């Protein structure tokens, strides 16, 4: 009902184009401000890596700022900055993306520079030797020194024996230590070709003009066949898995994941939508079941969460639960309490009121996201590089609306079962008591 009250907001102005070399272009008009966001997405992420070379997708992302035949190392960023732009890049399991945000008249600059580094990258030993050290610092900062990040990394390694989702995006430290410029060059050769890329532009632009620009700069780049992708399917999990991670922290932590399906056939799948609603019923707002019952009422936990994402290029997903027990409670207490919440839904289901609340939030979020061009471009880029169409956004609300309380109960019964559960717990290790005393030395320079 609410959906029908918000017409006109649904992708009134999204345009698709394809170049002869196979590169795709999606333009979404948004004329609220004289700005534009431009993102180039490559279907190349950690999912495409092989053992011994983990982290290479992300390392190449860093190297993409290190110069081409025409642009010297570091100049890419300086040129964009001088145009008033903001820029960066990010690597995920399923993709690598590069973006610029600019005043709208500067879009040609962004397109020209991205086209240049799509096929003219110069990857020297000297620049690689410095940048691989930067990436190792990044890994130390993100993972090595953060207890819960270590748990998450180990958890994924325990969940996936064969599938590449078991490996960290940033790569194992030992692989980074042995990575070479040749590995990065190989990655670039395998995946950085127009037929494996997508340009997403959102902003105050004319779609035909964007297409012309893209054709001019990306059009002449010759396509190459991309490397072969092996499915690396994960074997069936036959029984619960448990791991313990010891790391410096004060509080324990538990992370649990049930193997669950990802969205595969958008035309007919309904279970992923039911699983998203299930996550919303458990953790969609502050009054949702986990926070209300475990943090506020029983005070078993100081933090809890549940999550599920239906979108994944590997067509693998997990239904996750996590939490930090209160003082005097153990991770075992919290695990039991979390599983009890799952059992309650399996036996008694969810209410129509709870589902309606989750749906209302989704509907409002779809309006709120129009306030961010960057987010809208992200959404399109992610869906497309994961092998879905951005057009599934049009049906998303209606598909959620169609899910019944019985269906939510059904997916809980079917998927939240112990034999496909993996549990990781953090066993907190004290930092030496003496080490926390500052030594103050007046220092004259």
């Amino acid at each position: 009902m609410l959906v029908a009250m918000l017409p006109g907001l649904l992708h009134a102005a999204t345009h698709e184009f394809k170049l002869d070399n196979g590169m795709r272009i999606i333009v979404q008009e948004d004329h609220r401000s004289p700005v534009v966001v431009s993102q180039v997405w490559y279907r190349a992420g950690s999912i495409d890596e092989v053992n011994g070379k983990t982290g290479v997708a992300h390392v190449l992302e860093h190297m993409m700022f290190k110069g081409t035949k025409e642009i010297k190392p570091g100049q890419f960023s300086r040129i964009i900055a001088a145009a008033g732009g903001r820029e960066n890049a990010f690597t995920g399991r399923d993709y690598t993306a590069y973006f610029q945000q600019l005043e709208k008249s500067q879009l040609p600059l962004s397109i020209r520079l991205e086209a240049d580094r799509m096929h003219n990258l110069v990857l020297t030993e000297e620049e690689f030797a410095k940048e691989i050290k930067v990436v190792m610092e990044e890994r130390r900062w993100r993972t090595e020194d953060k207890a819960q990040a270590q748990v998450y990394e180990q958890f994924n390694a325990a969940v996936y024996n064969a599938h590449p989702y078991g490996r960290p995006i940033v790569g194992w430290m030992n692989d980074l230590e042995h990575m070479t410029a040749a590995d990065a060059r190989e990655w670039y050769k395998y995946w950085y070709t127009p037929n494996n890329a997508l340009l997403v532009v959102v902003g105050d632009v004319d779609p035909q003009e964007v297409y012309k620009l893209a054709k001019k700069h990306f059009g002449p780049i010759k396509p190459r066949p991309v490397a072969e992708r092996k499915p690396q399917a994960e074997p069936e999990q036959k029984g619960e898995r448990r791991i313990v991670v010891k790391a410096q922290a004060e509080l324990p932590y538990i992370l649990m994941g049930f193997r669950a399906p990802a969205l595969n056939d958008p035309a007919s799948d309904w279970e992923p939508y039911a699983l998203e609603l299930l996550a919303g019923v458990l953790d969609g707002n502050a009054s949702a079941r986990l926070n209300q019952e475990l943090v506020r009422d029983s005070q078993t936990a100081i933090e809890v969460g549940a999550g599920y994402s239906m979108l994944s290029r590997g067509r693998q997903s997990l239904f996750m639960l996590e939490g930090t027990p209160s003082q005097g409670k153990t991770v075992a207490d919290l695990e039991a309490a979390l599983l009890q919440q799952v059992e309650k839904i399996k036996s008694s289901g969810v209410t129509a009121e709870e589902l309606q609340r989750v749906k209302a939030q989704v509907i409002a979020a779809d309006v709120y996201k129009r306030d961010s061009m960057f987010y809208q471009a992200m959404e399109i880029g992610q869906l497309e590089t994961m092998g879905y169409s951005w057009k599934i956004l049009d049906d998303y609300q209606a598909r959620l609306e169609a899910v019944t309380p019985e269906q939510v109960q059904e997916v809980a019964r079917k998927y939240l079962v112990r034999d496909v559960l993996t549990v990781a717990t953090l066993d907190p290790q004290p930092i030496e008591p003496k080490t926390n005393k500052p030594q103050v030395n007046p220092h004259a320079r």
Partner: protein
Amino acid sequence: MRADMNLFKNLALLTAGLLFAVQAYAGVKIENWQTSTGADVYFVENHDLPIIDISVNFAAGSARDTVEKAGLSAITRHMTTTGAAGMSEEEISKRMADIGAILGGEHDMDRAGFKLRTLSKLPEREQALDIYSKIIQQPDFPEAILQREKTRIIANLKESATKPDSISSKAFMKAVYGDHPYGFSSEPETVAAIGRADLLQFYQAYYSANNAVIALIGDMSREQAAEIAERLTAALPKAASAPPLSAVGLPQQAVEQRIEHPASQSHILLGYPGVSRGDPDYFPLYVGNYILGGGGFVSRLTEEVREKRGLVYSVYSYFMPMAVEGPFQIGLQTKKEQGEEALKVVRDTLDGFMQKGVTEAELKAAKQNIIGGFPLRLDSNAKILDYLAVIGFYKLPLTYLDDFNKEVDKVTTAQIKDAFNRRINTDNLVTVIVGTAQ
């Protein structure tokens, strides 16, 4: 829960700077008035999207804490959302979720803030405003919930005390500010000492209309905005205006703190009291800092420490302008064994910057970025709302946004060198290193 782990190349680029430069673009028309109770209102009408964004900021940040009960201001703000006008916390969250409204909160050294985002149509708008106005004006501060939240906060403080980034920023603020309230930090003991009577007293003292600034943007008329502003302030406590904060004393000697930690990286912070909002040196310092360490990948610090030597993932510097001098900070993390080397490069870079200033070419590039990128500062209602709140709270001129680019353009290389050397005494710099090589 855990989103895809997106690996941004440099988080500092994305995070350092939101609060700094404020600016108005042609087309953003700010209306300004006072409510009948004396609260300042800043409003931008915009019907592009069927949404409304509101913030209410009180001069009730952590600078109003006492050292013995540090954390009181933050807990008072937080507790308003756990029960109001007889509504339980569960009712508050359910009724907000039912309409997809988002209640947000902010708290820093100067401000305690409340944010609301809602659909502009009825009944959503009405229900959201009803709850929002009760939270702000009729908090119940339930005793049992206070005890529960204190327990949670203390647990989180103990966790933070094991984390090198928390340890370093706490030690840094204490070393830079000494006994000034900007240097206070919540500790398990100070939170344990806070009782319900403290919350009531703090609320009565600081949550008055004359200590409030209301910002509104979105799908409403000026008349509707005026009605909303009245409704959000009519029942606030009557109190005197918050007194000005005490002056910040400058460090009288260099301080270098080394704190051992088993982490693989050293977390290094350097700094000094920086600049206040509306300070005449603000623009030379802001533009100069872009060149030193604020301009992401193109700053001198990034060039020297990361690009040339591969010593860090992130190195940055910023000025955080506050009611009185907010911090100037340089920060980096690097593996312990090369901590001293990285620190020396940072100090050499800073010294060179102070002694020789910036080049005309660097200044030109900085202006090109700041001025050319101006429209990006105002490309969403959410961003404009934050600028309205800053202008209102710090009593910046209504033309501040219109004048921003002109002020940036006026800055000269001589002004940058002069302002940095007058304001930052590098002989008395504070340095904090958490995690040192054995």
